[in-house]
């Protein structure tokens, strides 16, 4: 499974949503109505599952699933 697939699978644990509703442009807060607690849980799980650190200062600019995908890919390459 690619990284975006892993991210969307994780998001589906927190939102009642179909696969075709999740794209790189999906904003989990605006489009799926997840709250801060959901987002912190998701980010924490991504860190644990993928072995990356997502810095607090970066969280605010990770708006869409595509942002998360790009950010984690860059982290995994460094």
């Amino acid at each position: 499974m690619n990284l975006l697939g892993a991210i969307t699978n994780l998001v589906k644990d927190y939102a009642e949503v179909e696969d075709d509703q999740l794209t790189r442009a999906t904003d989990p807060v605006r489009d799926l109505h997840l709250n801060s607690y959901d987002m912190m849980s998701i980010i924490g799980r991504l860190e644990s599952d993928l072995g990356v650190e997502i810095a607090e200062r970066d969280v605010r600019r990770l708006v869409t699933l595509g942002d998360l995908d790009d950010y984690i890919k860059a982290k995994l390459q460094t």
Partner: protein
Amino acid sequence: MIRAAVCLDARLRTHQGQHAAAEVLLQHALGNGFGLPAAGTDLVHDSCGRPAVAAHPEVHVSVSHCEGAVLVAASSARIGVDVEWLRPLDRFALARMLNPAEIDRVLRSPDPDREFFRYWTLKESYLKAVGTGLGYAVKDLDVDVAPDGTASVRSRQAWVGLDERFEGYVLAFCSLDSGPGDTDVALERRELTRL
């Protein structure tokens, strides 16, 4: 005075429903607390998503929602509120949001789930009052919760308080100001049918 209103109803499951309920609750709080007519309470949001009354920047408002609950507040003080429903704590959120001393206190608590959501909602209420939202170094925010539920934030000019009168929910309030009445909370529960 912090004029707050809460609605607890299992039907509040969608963001649209929660948003609609929050608007009505806020109009109620602004009308009762500040004499503002409903027509003059349109909200705007800043870049961090913090709401404000467009025509009355002197009034501070805060909104929180979770599954089954909406909490709003209005005050002349800078405030933040948060509500969460009690459920098993998420260990990833625990590690992400609480510092080691807080995690230790949560895990040693006779009711770790409730203790966790006390810390979580208190931190969220502070972040909302400050207006930074997610992205703040939240682990650096040291929160204390005494066994009787009295709460405080270390090294910050802020008052925080918990309200756990409603079964299954934890409510938290924060005021960054400490003038007369700035930390007095007048909380009213409203029913969905009466919104």
